[in-house]
């Protein structure tokens, strides 16, 4: 039972990180119908920006600001940096291909992913970077928390899950309630008709990249708070993020959240009850099963081709 609770907590943490990544895929796919392969690497860059900001603020052992402010600041730095990166990627690698055959931006995205990953390796090497969250406030993030039975839910986990969900709710409100959010939905349904309403489609697309990349940046920090990061994490995390997006129904926001959680739980439980070695494989098997049985995902509508 204790193991079960422990794994559920792990699944929740992991799942909310995946959900944040998945949202980025969904937002961009919703509007451009483009699988942004570079998204996982934006996430990786986010974890590095967070690390850099942490060092600037004195590091975990001697932070210059209170812990809560430190966490907020490094998350904001990562979000801002990634948002900028997202805009640059869109402008230079995708926008020129807006009307090219479908395969062209996909290949460009592969190139961006590769370029980012190895540029980071070139600049920072492939060593691991540890946020060392354990040293913050004398381990408060790990020792404090509340108990379920005999299991302690550490504060860090609570913070990660809570802030991930807060971000998702903000996104949800942004997309459903605001003028720009509605313009985004209109654009993803029918780009030309949206333009006919006076919506500046280019701006909307940039906005989607800003939102998605910022979420990836936040996810990068959350990920790196619980385990060391390195320049290679982007590939697998990106893969899982878009698996989550596909499971939930790509283009759908609640779908991305649900998909992320499903994936997080699946991974945590396989790791706990079977073996770490097979957890990645399981993720892929779930995905392929989904694609066979319900290719549109949990929340997606079947793809109707325009004839």
């Amino acid at each position, binding site marked *: 039972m204790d193991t079960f609770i422990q794994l559920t907590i792990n699944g929740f943490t992991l799942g909310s990180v995946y959900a944040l990544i998945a949202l980025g895929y969904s937002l961009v796919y919703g509007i451009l119908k483009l699988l942004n392969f570079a998204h996982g690497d934006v996430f990786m860059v986010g974890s590095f920006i967070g690390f850099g900001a942490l060092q600037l603020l004195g590091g975990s052992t001697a932070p210059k600001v209170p812990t809560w402010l430190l966490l907020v600041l490094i998350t904001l730095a990562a979000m801002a940096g990634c948002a900028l990166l997202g805009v640059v990627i869109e402008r230079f690698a995708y926008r*020129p291909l807006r009307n090219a055959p479908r395969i*062209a931006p996909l290949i460009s995205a592969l190139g961006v992913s590769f*370029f980012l990953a190895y*540029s980071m390796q070139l600049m920072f090497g492939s060593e691991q970077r540890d946020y060392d969250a354990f040293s913050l406030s004398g381990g408060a993030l790990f020792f404090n928390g509340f108990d379920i039975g005999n299991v302690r839910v550490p504060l860090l986990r609570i913070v990660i899950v809570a802030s991930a969900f807060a971000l998702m709710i903000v996104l949800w409100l942004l997309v459903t309630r605001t003028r720009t959010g509605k313009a985004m939905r209109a654009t993803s349904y029918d780009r030309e008709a949206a333009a006919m309403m006076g919506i500046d489609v280019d701006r909307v697309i940039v906005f989607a990249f800003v939102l998605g990349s910022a979420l990836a940046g936040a996810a990068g920090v959350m990920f790196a708070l619980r385990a060391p990061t390195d320049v290679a994490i982007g590939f697998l995390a990106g893969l899982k993020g878009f698996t989550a997006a596909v499971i939930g129904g790509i283009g759908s926001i609640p779908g991305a959240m649900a998909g992320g959680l499903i994936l997080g739980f699946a991974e945590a439980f396989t790791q706990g009850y079977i073996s770490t070695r097979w957890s990645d494989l399981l993720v892929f098997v779930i995905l392929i099963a989904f694609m066979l049985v319900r290719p549109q995902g949990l929340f997606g509508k079947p793809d109707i081709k325009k004839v």
Partner: protein
Amino acid sequence: MADEETRRERLEEGVPAASATAGPQIGVDEWVARSAERRGGRGGRLGVVEARLRTVPWWAWLTLFVAIVAALPVGFESGYVRRVAFDTVIFMLLALGLNVVVGWGGLLDLGYVAFYGVGAYTYAILSADRYDLHLPVFVSIPAAAVVGGLVGLLVGLPSRRLVGDYLAIVTLFFFQIFLTVSNNSDSIFGEDRAGGPNGILNVEPLSLFGRELPVSTEGIFNVAYLYVALAFFVVVFVALRLANASRTGRAWRSLREDPLAAELMGMPVNWLKLTAFAFGAAVAALTGTLVTALNGSVFPQTFEFPLLITVYTMVILGGAGSQAGVVIGAIGISVLLELLREPGDSRFLFYVLSVLALVGTLRFSRRLAIVLGGTLALGFVVHSLAGAIDGSWTAGAARDGGRLGEWATQWVVVPSSLASWVTPVSYIGLVAAVLTLTLLRGRLRLALLVPTLYLAAFVWENVMLAKPEPTRFVVLGAILIAVMVARPEGVLGEKRVEIV
């Protein structure tokens, strides 16, 4: 109908040049709008030469090419050159196979390298001491190709009803599954039966007509392997060429141009996708056998993502859809990657390519002289200033010197030790400068070009040369993006008008 005819007439009348519009617009299909210039051949004297060359039949080119490659070992005694030539032919084979899937089928296959692995493993299982099957190569090699093709069919199956992106995902996951399984094969099948991350060792070399071909004689690469690879290349090239000219080849083309229309016209779209997949997979698997036979072993680490990107870059750079193009792409990238390994070569490559690129874009004009002169002058000024401020800033030694290296350190600032912030700042600055260059026009562009060139030299000397491994892949990624954005049809790709 009448409309149709007038349209066609208009088409032949020729069209006025497109007026420049600022940036891409919705509905204004630049791809389409620029199709005229993309399709038009070259004018002038070069155009005449080009037209002449086009009349030479493909098999003549092929023969000439094979003859040149076959003659290489005669000119170059060194095992290194032979080995590089062999690796290049392997890349050519891989590129030909991927071209079937991407260039002809128009499908994004991200599991391609796994099929290469399937072939390599199949051959290893059929020929390694460990399994004691020792099938003759005339059985094991075709068997590996067939297994590869069948696995290709299997992987293609779930993607039957799926649109392009989903196919990419399924194949990417297949790739991951392949990697997971091959890395963990020892724990799946038992350590006595599979090697897992340690791979399969002691695979027999090729044997022809009852005689084993030793991999090397007196430490020098056995040139016979190059000839075997070349023979494979010719067979695959011709076979694919014939396949492309067949009914299936034409159907592939229409599938790629407009999948929906192809489906509506009653083409067996799924079957066509599957055959393209299977063809590509079979070629990859076939290639895998050769490499395994040569190396005498196979390891899961060979089949990683960077290899996939490498082959993609070859196909895209050369021009997806054109066999000659992807072969040229394979040679270019293979040689490039080889040169980037050694600091001396890499430096040479950098300066030569930079100057060539400048000449290519600016021609022999005054602007070229200004840019070159300006960059040189800027370099000497910066160098002497830096040296005057702090001697250690220019005290670094050229990596793997040579005369060019010595000369370069007289011009580029190479500090004896780099502060940790210099690398990211200069690199990110370079990327930003290059991206900005693409936005600028006219004088501003020339003005920014000068410091960008110098910054590039600085980054190359101080950052890239020190880390050849990520440099090679950064360069590949950059080529991939640049080609897609600037010239999606590649060097020799079929220039075609897209249907909107």
